[in-house]
């Protein structure tokens, strides 16, 4: 009896614990409808700016940020709910986690849109004589009709994605710019299984295949498609779905489920003509908003995209190759010509279809309701360049923000060749500053430390400007001054001037002049207290060249490729004035946005010359320690050289490197060492060098590392084994905390259309479009364009045009009598497209009406 009671008690305990576990927030069941599609995409629940930020506080809003590691998004949401975390900085794409998030009243999220999934096809003819259906471009094109993207969005992603058809990302500026062209193509390539089946059947028969018992057969053998399906994410169910669709139209599909490592040798490395695969579920990531996707056609449809065997098998239709190259090289005179090239390239690329894009993922990063942070539309909070300046608890100054991410301290930190993991660059962005920052919603460059810039381009170059901080001029000829620096003499450690290298003179296509404000060198200080100086900028120029020359003491073969890339277009740099700092840079490379030409991403080298290196910000004196250590073969900036020398990879924040760097700090301090003294010595005095090393010594004694930046946070504590690091507010940071408060929330417009449900053919019809954000009228000043598209009952685009502004956030579309008289009787669809100027995502609103006689 006792025994029975015991077992009963035990059973009850187990059941009780299971019930409690089931009641926990992390495991709660989804009770709501699946998230909506693109028009009401779920993720733009970023906290609103509820008040005008008014403060005297300088620097960061919060006092401290603590980073920890958490691999599981589900566990992170549990911790957010339990109040043990404030932000999970990762692009989460798991629908069940989003359901949990939606049912958690204390949590919200921000939208991240930089990832896409595609169906990649092997276009080669197989050497062993087997039939490869995808060597036929019409069959590749027919794959668009095979895939029901709305099904994928709703059933697989539960709404956390947007259907995507073309090479253009649906949330980047070019999509908004050419929305009318794209909507037309999307209508043309909308899901139509019968059309796909018919097209495939016609082509397969033409290629000599026959349908036997519902299965395609060639030379007596069934046509079996080797479909490599990635297993790590939603590409697994997507692959399963497409495989089933292919089976529906008569193919035998060999589903090969593989991880990235297993799949890579097959789809990417094997010779496509060997026929190891037919189809692959590809995926691409854009870490930041790409304002010019013109280069994507060459990247994805021509052999120039990559040196791998798959890309070498790309032999596009000649005209597609031409327009792809024209767009890659910005070979157009104005935006209208660019538009024509895009229209042609888009149409031809859909016919070529080496890839069929399926979705743009609408991932999210969860955080607590009372937190706000500027989140990059493509990169999330972790990709935002101004997260450090903007993160705050609403209505509060100070406090500690606790952030988790799936990794931390992954690889060594050093500005020249350190980690490029997002888990490391995220906290790094909080400690660093820059001359310009990227607008998290549009990708345009905004001045941060810079005061203004002037861009001059040669006549005929298609360069345009949007913002007022930059001026743009054209000229017939840009001559590079003879005293501009263009190359580096690693032996004598002196720059080579244009006059020395090009005695006959040198001309170029663009000139950028950046103006830093008066007094910057008094107000901006490194975290160790040393004032920023022109020497930090010059050191950046030197380090661009020196490691790539064999005569250098720190020669590193791994840096040669990048320098060659720079030098291909670089035409010189000249320091016009050191205080205030004014720098001229000459370059043959350009971008259609003048602002982007002054930013970090597109044109190399970066013409601001801010001491922001490829892998972080660095002061000349902290980098000097690494230079000494590398010259003495005790450390190396890059992993390649560290391995070649069998020495430690330079980590300025932890590990065995610190002892070596400390040794060289002592040596440098004792000698007042000035690296590259023949050049840098003109910008640094011995006293300044001594003061800098003294400051760095004190900083190291206090914080235990050498990571010295100028940003809103100081790297305070590094705990590698515990997997934690802490950032403390930089009290010397000069900017007001509310400088970037306008980026609290992306103003993604909500559009509603109203109008007559029935329209008589031959009569005028007027439709109203209401554009709002958070239930307020969307300021017309923030809208660059409102377009409309009219589709008939077959989905064909009939007409497009611009809507007329009739009030704040109100627009009108008028279909005149001749337009309505041309329409077919029946259901027609009007689509209104709103293109804001303050966010790169366009908003769409369909409206259906019936045309009567």
């Amino acid at each position, binding site marked *: 009896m006792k025994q029975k009671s015991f077992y009963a008690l035990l059973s009850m305990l187990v059941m009780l614990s299971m019930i409690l576990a089931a009641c926990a927030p992390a495991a709660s069941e989804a009770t709501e409808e699946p998230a909506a599609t693109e028009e009401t995409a779920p993720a733009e629940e970023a906290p609103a700016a509820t008040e005008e930020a008014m403060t005297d506080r300088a620097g960061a809003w919060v006092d401290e940020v603590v980073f920890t590691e958490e691999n599981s998004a589900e566990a992170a949401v549990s911790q957010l709910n339990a109040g043990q975390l404030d932000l999970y900085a990762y692009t989460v794409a798991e629908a069940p986690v989003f359901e949990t998030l939606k049912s958690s009243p204390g949590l919200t999220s921000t939208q991240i849109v930089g990832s896409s999934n595609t169906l990649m096809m092997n276009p080669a003819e197989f050497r062993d004589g087997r039939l490869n259906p995808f060597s036929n471009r019409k069959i590749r094109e027919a794959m668009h009709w095979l895939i029901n993207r709305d099904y994928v969005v709703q059933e697989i992603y539960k709404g956390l994605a947007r259907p995507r058809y073309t090479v253009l990302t649906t949330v980047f500026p070019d999509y908004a710019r050419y929305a009318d062209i794209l909507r037309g193509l999307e209508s043309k390539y909308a899901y139509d299984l019968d059309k796909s089946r018919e097209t495939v059947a016609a082509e397969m028969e033409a290629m000599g295949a026959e349908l036997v018992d519902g299965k395609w057969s060639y030379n007596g053998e069934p046509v079996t498609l080797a479909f490599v399906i990635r297993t790590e994410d939603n590409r697994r169910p997507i692959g399963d779905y497409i495989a089933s669709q292919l089976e529906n139209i008569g193919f035998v599909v060999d589903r090969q489920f593989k991880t990235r490592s297993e799949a890579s040798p097959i789809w990417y490395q094997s010779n496509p003509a060997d026929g190891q695969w037919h189809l692959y579920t590809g995926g691409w990531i854009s870490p930041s908003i790409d304002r010019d996707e013109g280069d994507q056609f060459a990247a994805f449809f021509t052999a*120039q995209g990559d040196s791998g065997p798959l890309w070498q098998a790309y032999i596009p239709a000649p005209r597609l190759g031409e327009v792809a190259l024209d767009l890659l090289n910005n070979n157009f005179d104005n935006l209208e010509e660019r538009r024509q090239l895009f229209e042609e390239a888009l149409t031809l690329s859909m016919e070529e279809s080496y890839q069929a894009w399926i979705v743009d993922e609408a991932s999210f990063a969860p955080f607590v309701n009372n937190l706000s942070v500027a989140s990059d539309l493509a990169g999330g909070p972790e990709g935002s360049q101004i997260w450090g300046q903007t993160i705050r608890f609403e209505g509060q100054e100070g406090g500690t923000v606790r952030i988790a991410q799936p990794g931390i301290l992954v690889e060594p930190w050093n500005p020249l060749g350190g980690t490029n993991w997002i888990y490391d660059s995220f906290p790094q962005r909080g400690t660093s500053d820059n001359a310009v920052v990227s607008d998290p919603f549009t990708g345009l460059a905004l001045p941060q430390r810079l005061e203004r810039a002037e861009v001059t381009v040669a006549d005929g170059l298609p360069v345009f400007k949007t913002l007022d901080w930059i001026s743009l001029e054209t000229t017939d000829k840009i001559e590079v001054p003879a005293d501009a620096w263009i190359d580096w003499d690693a032996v004598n450690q002196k720059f080579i001037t244009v006059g020395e290298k090009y005695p006959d003179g040198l001309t170029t296509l663009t000139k950028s002049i950046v103006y830093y404000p008066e007094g910057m060198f008094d107000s901006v200080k490194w975290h160790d207290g040393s004032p920023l100086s022109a020497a930090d900028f010059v050191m950046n120029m030197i380090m661009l060249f020196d490691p790539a020359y064999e005569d250098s003491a720190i020669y590193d073969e791994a840096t040669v490729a990048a320098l060659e890339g720079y030098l291909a277009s670089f035409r010189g740099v000249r320091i016009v004035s050191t205080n205030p700092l004014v720098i001229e840079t000459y370059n043959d490379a350009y971008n259609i946005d003048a602002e982007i030409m002054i930013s970090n991403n597109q044109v190399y080298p970066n013409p601001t010359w801010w001491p922001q290196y490829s892998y972080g910000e660095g002061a000349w004196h902290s980098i000097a320690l690494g230079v000494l250590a590398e010259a003495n073969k005790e450390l190396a900036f890059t*992993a390649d050289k560290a391995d070649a020398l069998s020495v430690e990879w330079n980590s300025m924040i932890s590990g065995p490197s610190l002892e070596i760097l400390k040794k060289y700090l002592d040596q440098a301090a004792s000698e007042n060492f000035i690296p590259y003294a023949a050049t840098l010595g003109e910008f640094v005095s011995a006293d300044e060098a001594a003061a800098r090393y003294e400051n760095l010594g004190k900083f190291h004694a206090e914080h235990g590392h050498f990571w010295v930046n100028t940003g809103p946070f100081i790297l305070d504590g590094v705990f590698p084994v*515990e997997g934690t690091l802490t950032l403390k507010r930089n009290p010397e940071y000069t900017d007001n905390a509310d400088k970037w408060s306008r980026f609290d929330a992306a103003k993604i417009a909500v559009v509603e259309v109203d109008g007559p449900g029935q329209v008589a053919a031959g009569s005028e019809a007027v439709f109203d479009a209401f554009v709002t954000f958070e239930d307020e009228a969307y300021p017309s000043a923030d809208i660059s364009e409102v377009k409309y598209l009219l589709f008939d009952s077959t989905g064909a685009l009939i007409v497009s045009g611009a809507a007329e502004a009739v009030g704040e956030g109100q627009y009108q579309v008028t279909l005149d009598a001749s337009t309505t008289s041309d329409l077919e009787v029946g259901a027609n669809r009007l689509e209104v497209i709103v293109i804001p100027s303050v966010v790169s995502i366009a908003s769409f609103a369909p409206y259906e009406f019936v045309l009567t006689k």
Partner: protein
Amino acid sequence: MTTATETIPSTPVSRRPAGTFLRLLKFTAARLFSLFVTVVIGVFLTILIANMGGYVDTIRRAEIREGIMVRVNSTNILDNLSAEDRLKRIEDMARLEEKRLGLDQPFMVRTVKYMSNALTLNLGRAQKMSSDSGSRTVRLIILERLAPTLILFGASNILLFAGSILIALNLSRNYGSFLDRVIVGLAPTSSAPGWFYGLFLIVLFAGVLRLLPFGGMVDAPPPPNRFDYFLSLLKHLVLPTVAIALSTLFLSTYNWRTFFLIFSSEDYVEMAKAKGLTSRDIERRYILRPTLPTIITNFALILIFLWTGAPILETVFNWPGLGRALFQAVGLFDIPVIVGSTVIFAYMLAITVFILDFVFALVDPRVKVGSGENRQ
């Protein structure tokens, strides 16, 4: 569970010291040689398996080129070059990376190099992983994770080992008691691994009751003074230790109890009881003594297997242990880390087996080192 090694001399044993020394020397040499060969074979197989017989080279090459393509396209660093120069530079970058990873050498050459380095305990450099503090040396990658592993698994396993033996001894004396039936009844709970209990414990004690942390080794940021750090560490140890205990304690106790029960029913134990010895004396002299070799063997193996960690449990509790590091190394095909940890494990196992031979002779008078011809 291993059985006690017994040696029953069939002939009178020579007591000459020189003969004993020679026999010992011969045994030691033969034993060391056989163990070394075993280690060599084990390490060689590890190298072959970790490299998938050389196929990892193909994976690596593909990953290198794919990584470069993504990097070049996302950073636009080579945009300004002509198409031909761009492709050439991409090839150069790939070649450099292949050289860094040693892919410019034939697989068999690298295998021999791995072997010789491993056997001489020259653990070398990781190919992709860094230690927590940023070092590429395999030694540091392993050493940095050793302390947390020893703290969690060392403490919990040693406590569990001692606890289960003491409880088992008690149960073997009180066979059929209520506690005995409870342990027997709960033994099947050990069929689930520790991480499984960990998930429930986290939901219950961290998510719902909010009494204990979700995971990690200490609070973030770690407390600055040692006492607070220690308290924080204890707090974070509770849930993973309980999870390990739930998954092993009952079965382990049940096994030991059964083992002791077998010895408790030996004739010589009955004789001791009949002679009126106290139960403590019987336990110590007639049960524990003959079972000591088995207990020592188990204890030694527990210590060695700490080396492998517990990847899933560590992941669930976000514990920075060796198991996660090795799991990561396998995922990244980081051969030096895999081989390095394996060779240390192999040496530790071989040395333990070697030492146990002598320990058995010390603790069990029936065992005699070197007279292998009489082994049963």
